[in-house]
């Protein structure tokens, strides 16, 4: 990991197109960062990114059709249950 020390209002440049500015340093240790980057660069808080990744992984676990049909009970009249067809 690259470690750099920066002061208030100082910046970092990543790849010549992403600019990170230290906007504030709080007493409680909180640091406010301003980031400008091209539109295609996705920036998330790490906790959220990790949470969504984990949820996607859970969703991709081989799911059974039985589990899918259990949905009918939860969604009630909105979803035709498996027994409504055929």
């Amino acid at each position, binding site marked *: 990991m690259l470690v750099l020390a920066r002061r208030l209002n100082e910046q970092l440049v990543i790849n010549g197109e992403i600019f990170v500015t230290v906007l504030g340093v709080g007493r409680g240790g909180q640091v406010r960062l301003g980031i400008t980057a091209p539109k295609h660069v996705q920036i998330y808080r790490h906790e959220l990114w990790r949470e969504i990744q984990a*949820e*996607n992984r859970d969703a*991709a676990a*081989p799911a059974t059709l039985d589990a*899918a049909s*259990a949905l009918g*009970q939860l*969604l009630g009249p909105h979803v035709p249950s498996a027994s409504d067809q055929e």
Partner: protein
Amino acid sequence: MSAMCAAPATRPTVHVQTLHRGLIEVPEQDLITFVSPLLGFERLVRFLIYQTQPGPMVWLQSVEDPAVAFCLLDPFAAGLDPDMEISAADIADVGAEGADQVTVYTVMVLDKDPAQIRINLRAPILVGRLTQRAKQVVLTDQRLPVRFHLRDLAKPKV
């Protein structure tokens, strides 16, 4: 073999190995291309959306990895009407000119225990209906839960 080639040459077909329907043949233009990946599945780009029953639930089958299939729920078709604000930039990214050209799906976690079945309202999947381009977006509204349990639908709205 020739009997299988019913589609005209202008609509080439591909075979996709699916988790729930075995090998199926679909027009290549029906495949979905992710322009921005599903988080955690960055290497998977091409998918097929198909249904095993009518209704708001579809399967999102990876073309590249037959073992990866997501169950998606169209929350609007399911009558949940979540308060999701989709940005114009995200709509443009999937090649749509307006929200009416976009289908919104939520990633669903299925479970044998119905109480554990949940959808991700924070990071829906947008599919451009005319372009078949898709992306998973992370909405900025922090009130939208990553884990919304469908059992909570039974409870009165807050």
